[in-house]
């Protein structure tokens, strides 16, 4: 339950932050959510990764389908064969990395002051 709640928090806060702030602030959002996590570093990383990857994937996918793939197909030519789907995947992966690292950092920061499990 907590896990789902954290993912949801990441998605909502991440969305809000990026809507008004520069794109990279998503890592700060993940750090804040990570700060509230009592789990292991690995769990924190995975949660952050999944949350932001999901957020980025869904928005990239929506943008692409509303655009009927016009732009992604042009970029496929530009990036020599990178298909629209792989562009979405890469986008998700990058978002995931940012989310994961942010969350992990926040989580490790928490442990400096509040010893959790391990």
């Amino acid at each position, binding site marked *: 339950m907590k896990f789902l709640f954290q993912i949801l928090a990441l998605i909502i806060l991440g969305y809000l932050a990026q809507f008004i702030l520069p794109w990279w602030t998503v890592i700060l959002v993940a750090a804040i959510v990570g700060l509230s996590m009592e789990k292991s570093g690995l769990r924190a990383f995975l949660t952050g990764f999944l949350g932001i990857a999901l957020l980025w994937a869904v928005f990239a996918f929506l*943008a*692409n389908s509303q*655009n*009927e793939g*016009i732009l992604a197909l042009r970029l496929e*030519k530009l990036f020599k064969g990178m298909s629209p789907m792989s562009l979405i995947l890469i*986008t998700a992966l990058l978002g995931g990395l940012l989310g994961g690292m942010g969350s*992990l950092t926040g989580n490790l920061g928490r442990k400096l002051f509040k010893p959790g499990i391990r």
Partner: protein
Amino acid sequence: MKWIKFLLALLLSAGLVYLLNSPIKQGKQTIPPLGKFLNPFSGFWKNGEAVGQHQNKSYQFSELSAKVDVVYDKQLVPHIFAQNLKDAYFVQGYITAKHRLWQMDLTTRAVSGRLSEILGPITLERDKLQRRKGLVFAAENALADWEKQAEDYSNLQSYTAGVNAYIKALQPRDYPLEFKLLNYSPEAWSNLKSALFIKSMAQSLCSREKDLESTNALTVFGQEVFDFLYPEQNPKQSPIIPKDTPWDFSPVSIPEQKPVLMGLFEHNPYPKPSPFLGSNNWAVAGSKTKSGKPILCNDPHLGMTLPAVWFELQISTPEANSYGVSLPGFPGITIGFNDKISWGMTNVGHDVLDYYKILWTDNKREQYIIDDQIKKVKFRIETYKIKGQESVTDTVRYTEWGPIVYEDKNHPMQDLATQWLAHDAGSNEVSVFRKLHTSVDFDDYYNAVQEFKVPPQNIVFAGNSGDIALKVQGKFPLKTFSQGRFIQDGSNSANDWHGYIPSAHNPQVKNPERGFVSSANQHSTDTTYPYYYLGNFEDYRGRTLNELLDSMSSITIEDMMALQNNNYSHKAADALPLMLRYLDWQPGNDLDEKVYSGLKDWDFHYEKDLLAPIVFTYWFDEFYQLTWDEISAKEDSLEIELLYPESWRTIALLEDNPEHSFFDNKETKALETAREMVTQSFLKALERIKEDLENDPDFNLAKYKRTHVPHIGRIEAFGSTLLSTGGDGTALNAIKGTHGPSWRMIVELSDPVKAYGVYPGGQSGNPGSPYYDNMLAYWADGKYFEKLLLKSPDELPDQILFEEQYDK
């Protein structure tokens, strides 16, 4: 331990953000910062427009004096309804920026030598050349003139304010795609940038000259051979002003001046301006049309690009209602119509750029001599910001003639001063388009175009009262015979232009007996025109156009569409029968027979599925090269560049002097005539076409032409795919590779006015928009869209996609 783990993670996170926010250099290419570019909130995904979703919007701007309504039709053409022109220009600026901001940025950077700021040292030499040619100098001069015209200047400022209102409201996520790819931000627009835009047109349209090649050719061959090879007037031409039109003015007289040869100009070949750009326009009188009302047509041929050269719009104010295409960066409608008149442009080929050899006092080159008087050079320091590097400066010497463009010792034009019409002051282009907007008849049109000075244009006119007219409009230097054909002595003030031809003496024609006026970049006049001019003129399209228009009657809009798409080539019709007559060869096999009979039966139309036009093109190329091998041999042995005869001259030689010694191949002992040249060149052409057919048995003209529309920043993925078209530079449908009709317009001045048009591209400059290239396929197929000159925003609600309100 905990601290180390934490700090490590913190460091990694910061590093990750840094990495994803930095561009990646990969050889010559730079990949945009990945996180910045790919994130779906401000990266490229944001540039994909939602297809079929349009929203009505309203805006508020304190700059406006009243409410402006805009409706967009199905081709995304904005129809602007304003209470005055100033407000209309504000909204035109705003909307143009919204759809074409990056194009506007790139074009003005390119013309003013500021590409290196965004692309790095790779474009520095190009930038330097632009400024050395005085493009910024020219724009500054134009702007200084514009500032003196209060009403027009305030209109221009309003356009600039509109563009800037759009830029100011932009968030990084809204930046056009190319800004994101190249990782830079839009900067403010300025009045100077609009002036730069006009000078960019001048550079593409009126900076062609052959001074160096001509000087070398006269020096090497002597006067007699020179006159034989390079006559200025083609006897077969059909000039813009009909032959034998009387000149109803007494010409200004100027002192005679014999050209003095300034010697040979040696060393490295240098790049010349882009290939010949042409256009067609014509107007037929009501006596020749089915409706009894005049029809006006125009198709300016330019280097085609995506985003497209033109931006289409309607501007409606209480006093007038006009429609047409605009230059994205300049207020008003450049080519178009209102409910009373229509106007269009083609380029005038007159040579308005001349070179002068400077006599320096010493090799410091800070002082020079004109008429025994010592003059001081003015230095203009140009500073170049370069992406990723320190800025550099460059000094340009300005003489009384103009700037010294080339100082490189190896450049053949080293140390020559340039006198170019586009540097001159004295025009007010902004007023031209303001006045055309409200013109209701011939007098208004005539008055409006007076101020149009550079680049000179053949401005055609038709009005619903029945008048048709055409004026060769521009500021034309008064020149003595041959002046400006060769590099001139810059130490003698007598070689200066002798002022300008009075505008009333410019070639012009109104309601001629033949019932039509036309231009296709050919000579403005026959040889009776009392002023000397030379230049680049087209020899085939004008003849085709005049012959066809002469033969037509009861003309409909559909006839005019067919004429704009006509692929007949007078060049082929002139040359091919002669070449076939002298061909001494028999087909040896089926393929030979196929090629030969294809040529023999060809009707000289460059249709896309044919082979014959390719064979003819190869054959003529080879024949031309073989015929003028003397010239290329001289070029090689003397290490100079020489002038080559025009193609019509080559055809005339074949027709009139088939035994002439120029047909002799100097490398062989035998004495060759045209017969041998024609046959030898045919065999070479046959080889070439056979090779093509081996590679592709279905080879045809469309495949040979490879017509396509490239992206303006040469990003291949944002250009068009190959289009299947016919056409040729010598045909009215002048499609050649990436050049061609950049806007086809047909306007019938009936009541209400009927208009059709199409251009190779789309209204949006965004590669992620369905309107980026939606008209391209129609254009390639020769199809048109009906144009809507709306009387009010709610006249045709079912033709409207969405609306915008701009309020004060």
